[in-house]
């Protein structure tokens, strides 16, 4: 059988298109499955989460030990201007976190109870979905929503996407504002987004997150919510907890014990 050059090119071109089409289909298929399978797969694998026991946390309203520990561990700058602030964990009035649960008759002291806020390390994180470079992703082995500060292009789509306001952008160079430099943790540069990573660097060394360790009341309980025997699961099983905006389908993994 003789084959002309033109025919050869035609056939090989068609093959190439076919192959790339198959690959594209595979990608689409996996991303479609992603939503459902991640939920069921995460049942089997690990998903780190945290309980904030507001009954213990309320004892000292002025306490900022968790915030200080985080700031120190992660070289978080302390900008005065609220527009430029970087926050990994911070405190807000209870009412701001759970505005849909509010009743006007709640005592102001309870309503304004200052409560820790941090990244929810969602099951289905919208920030990861929108990131155009994969600079933020959900880590398979433990469900942490991670950040690569070297890949981030600073488009801030993730900040628009996050329904919890957990992400901060470095509007200016953060380094001059770092109070007490920790040489073991990287500093960031202007123009990238950052947020809580559940202290992945400490977990790797077998330690607890800095905020959990720093809390004098042991109000923060950290662990694998997929492990029925874990402390966090036991606590979740026998107490009423709230999550922020669960109706959005993001599957937040920070639980508030009330």
């Amino acid at each position, binding site marked *: 059988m003789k084959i002309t050059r033109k025919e050869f090119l035609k056939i090989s071109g068609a093959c190439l298109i076919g192959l790339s089409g198959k690959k594209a289909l595979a*990608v*689409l298929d996996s*991303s479609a499955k*992603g939503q459902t399978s991640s939920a069921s797969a995460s049942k089997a694998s690990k998903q780190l989460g945290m309980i904030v026991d507001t009954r213990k946390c309320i004892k000292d309203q002025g306490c900022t030990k968790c915030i200080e520990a985080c700031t120190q561990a992660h070289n978080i700058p302390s900008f005065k201007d*609220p*527009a*430029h*602030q970087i*926050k990994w964990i911070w405190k*807000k009035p209870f009412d*701001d*976190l759970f*505005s849909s649960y509010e009743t006007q008759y709640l005592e102001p002291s309870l309503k304004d109870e200052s409560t820790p*806020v941090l990244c929810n390390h969602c099951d289905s994180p*919208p920030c990861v*979905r*929108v*990131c*155009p*470079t*994969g*600079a933020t992703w959900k880590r398979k082995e433990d469900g942490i929503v991670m950040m690569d500060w070297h*890949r*981030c*292009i*600073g*488009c*801030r*789509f993730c*900040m*628009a*996407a*996050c*329904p*919890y*306001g957990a992400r*901060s*952008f*470095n*509007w*200016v*160079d953060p380094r001059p504002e770092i109070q007490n430099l920790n040489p073991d943790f990287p500093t960031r540069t*202007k*123009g*990238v*987004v950052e947020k809580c990573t559940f202290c992945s660097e400490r977990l790797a060394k077998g330690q607890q997150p800095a905020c959990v360790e720093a809390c004098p009341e042991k109000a923060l309980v950290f662990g694998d919510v997929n492990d029925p025997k874990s402390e966090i699961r036991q606590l979740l099983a026998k107490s009423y907890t709230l999550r922020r*905006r669960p109706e*959005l*389908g*993001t599957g937040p993994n920070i639980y508030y014990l009330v």
Partner: protein
Amino acid sequence: MFMLEKAMTGSRRYWTWVGALVAVIAVAFGFYLYQLNYGLGLTGMSRNVSWGLYIGQFTFMVGVAASAVMVVLPYYLHSHKEFARMTILGEFLAVSSVTMCMMFIMIDMGKPMRVFNVILYPQFHSVMFWDMLSLSGYLVLNATITYFTLHAEQEDVHPPHWIKYIILLSIPWAISIHTVTGFLYSGLPGRLGWRTAIMAPRFLASAFAAGPALLILLCLLLRRQTGYDVGKKAISGLAVIVTYAMVINTFFILMEFFTAMYSHVPDLTVDFQDLYLGAVHTSLLPWGRTSIVLMAAALVLLLVPRWRRNEKSLVVACVLVFSSLWIDKGVCMVVGGFIPSPLGTITRYVPTLPELIITLGVWAVGALMVTVFYKIALSVEIAKEASYVPAYELAGAASATGLQAHASSAVTGPGASAAGQGNEGVSGKGGEEWHH
């Protein structure tokens, strides 16, 4: 090369205008370098309002770019011959505004030098990736179309036959750029002001009003300055398109308003509260209200046939349409989505002076592109028309050369109006220019 030499000759007025634009661009570029060095903290954006004027302008310009389809579609699919002389102008406007879109994205980026990460690590689940694809595709399509059609016209031959398919492809592609841009917003779970299925349709409706309104203004300005007339029928045809699009856009806004206000769900009403009703104190209220008033005035002028057909009031209507939608999309839509923040904070956003100057610089680039492109297009068209002058009329050649010179001096306009609109002061300024 690319017929650019045609833009290299011109009268003093032409060069003054080009020089002025280049000066604005140079100053803005200086400020941009400063922003690059200092960080985006130079702008009025903040942790809570993390997109501002830049992304608003980007969104608005995607609409202007997409609106070229409102000339291309009637001309190529419905043989609407009246649009013949306007089509190339629409396509050039699209090329310029897509370029502006890309620049607005670039200046908004924290790490613009890493932009190729979007291609190096493509994320198919990110709408931003698809937006980049559709915008750059649209730029390539329109650049190809304008180059080959104009080149053929210059050589007085038929354009290559395959250009027809490119043109056909550009029609759905135009719809796609604004749809995908709508998805950037409507696909986010937590921003309820944006999470509406009619976001993309509303974007398209406002685009098809604002873009053609700008094109009408540019065409009339060209006629005044150069004598190049796209024809009364083309203008009135486009005016009808603007009217329909404006009505549909207003209808969409009212749909949103009803759904929010009647259902009375706080997450939905909050947007209208801070944009139009003033229940929450933000810096947006005066903008939102101005936009609505201009929109209503524009509708009145467009819907009454006598006024729509009168060129003077049509000019006013077009300025109103353009400025109203510029505010609605370029300022209110984006910033409004961030208020209140996920934790209920009301954050004021006011663009800073450097931010405004950088924005103006991008507009100046757009104006410069339109100026150069229209200059090229017109010299081709006018040369072609001049070549048809019968020999016995050559005595009147003096007037023909006069026209030519006039044409070169001409293109002050497009830029002038575009830059004016960038200035926010639009309605009055643009309008007056037309009356005198």
